[in-house]
């Protein structure tokens, strides 16, 4: 079942075309990554899906409903944790639900417990490390009632070790709740390790130039990083991206 579908979307800013007939879809319970050179209009795609911008052409469907220009239709985890410094961790993870109407503090407590944030419910964000803040932001997105989560390069600001921990943690959580996720990243390994499908985005104007189905079964272990097949995947995605940057130069 298709959860989110983006149909021949076009968008220009001051005669510079950023997106040109971009189409893709995300199935229910699927983890889809979008990878592309920087400046390929990824944040424009997010702002369009999030309803912050209106497309010039094309439509965005969530299930059966058209959501172009409708804010609050998707759940969102930004690049920075964007936690409110005056709210405790518990109040922060409930914010998404609060905006949409109903809060479930008990579910939130349990989820914080499982996410390794037990005991921090009443702490303030500045007392947490970078990785913990990102976990909080992800749980906030997970608790929000919308059927799909958009993640915008959530681990790009973390150091390598923390980033790796976070990827593993995200996979665990995903296995448990199976949310539908659209994930934007720069990191090829991250995309292969986490997702079911990878969309490779060409830049100026952005469109999907290649779609790549990740050949690993779930649940995935860390060992796949060293697998021959993993390197092969990485190589072919790398080549695809390289070709793109040649073209744009």
């Amino acid at each position, binding site marked *: 079942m298709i959860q989110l579908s983006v149909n021949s979307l076009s968008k220009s800013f001051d005669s510079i075309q950023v997106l040109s007939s971009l189409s893709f879809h995300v199935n229910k319970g699927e983890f889809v990554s979008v990878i592309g050179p920087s400046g390929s209009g990824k944040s424009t795609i997010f702002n369009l899906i999030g309803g*912050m911008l209106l497309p010039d052409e094309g439509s965005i469907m969530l299930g059966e409903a058209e959501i172009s220009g409708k804010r*609050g239709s998707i759940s969102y985890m930004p690049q920075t944790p*964007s936690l409110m410094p005056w709210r405790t961790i518990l109040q922060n993870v409930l914010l998404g639900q609060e905006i949409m109407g109903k809060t479930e503090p008990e579910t939130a407590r349990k989820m914080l417990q499982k996410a390794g944030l037990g005991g921090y419910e009443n702490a303030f964000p500045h007392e947490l490390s970078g990785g913990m803040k990102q976990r909080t932001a992800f749980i906030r997105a997970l608790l929000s009632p919308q059927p799909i989560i958009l993640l915008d390069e959530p681990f790009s600001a973390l150091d390598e070790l923390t980033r790796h921990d976070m990827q593993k943690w995200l996979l665990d959580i995903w296995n448990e709740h199976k949310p539908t996720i659209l994930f934007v990243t720069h990191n090829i390994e991250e995309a292969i390790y986490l997702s079911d499908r990878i969309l490779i985005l060409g830049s100026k104007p952005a469109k999907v130039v290649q779609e790549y189905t990740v050949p690993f079964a779930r649940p995935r272990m860390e060992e796949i990083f060293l697998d021959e097949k993993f390197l092969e995947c990485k190589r072919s995605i790398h080549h695809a991206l390289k070709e793109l940057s040649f073209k744009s130069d």
Partner: protein
Amino acid sequence: MINVFRKGWRPAAVLLLLFILWELSVNLAEVPAWLLPPPTDIIHEAVFGWDGFRPHLQSTVLLSLRGFAIGTFIGLLTAVILHLLPFIRESVYPLLILSQNVPIIVLAPLLVVWFGFGILPKLIVITLVCFFPITVAALDGFRQTPADLRHYMLMAGARRGQLFWKLELPHSLPSLFSGLKISATYSVMGAVISEWLGAKAGIGVYMTLASSSFRTDRVFVAILAIMLLSLLLFGGILLSERLLIKWKSRESGRK
């Protein structure tokens, strides 16, 4: 508390030194008391003239607290209206700045002409000096919300009201308290000025009477009282800030 003593002993020592110098030079040069009384005279007057001074002090405390409360309310209300209605902000904000350039000393007698000698013109004077710092501080706080938090709130579907109550208002609190601290000290000054115009009691009245009868020691007692009162109000605001803004005080405490 220990910290206060550790940091506070230096200015206290300087102050004490100044008082000793003052006392000595007044005595050595035989300056008459109506021109400049020595500190001991002032302390003597403060202690033994207390019964005569207390009703004046009481009246001023009450007046400045009332004025401060009204000024705070109006200041906040103005900030919220100007913030939520950009059209009004654009047309009124410049006038608001102009209004602050009208000297209160000039305006005060006019207010008496219009509203008489009751409490109303006095409250208007205090409100006029109080509300502006609060409005400016709150407006800045409302408008300078971090872009990432605003973007998250909008993506999450926050309506205008939610954006205000959940993001802009809490974010403006530290800035708002800076405004409150300024206004608190202004309110005492405003009260004294408004009492000069004509009142039955108050530090302003006490001061006018004292200076016209050359009781310079009493003028100094009044000055001392005004300073203490401002300091006390300031301290009260500081305390409520600590209690209300827990996330900030701890954060800066760490650095």
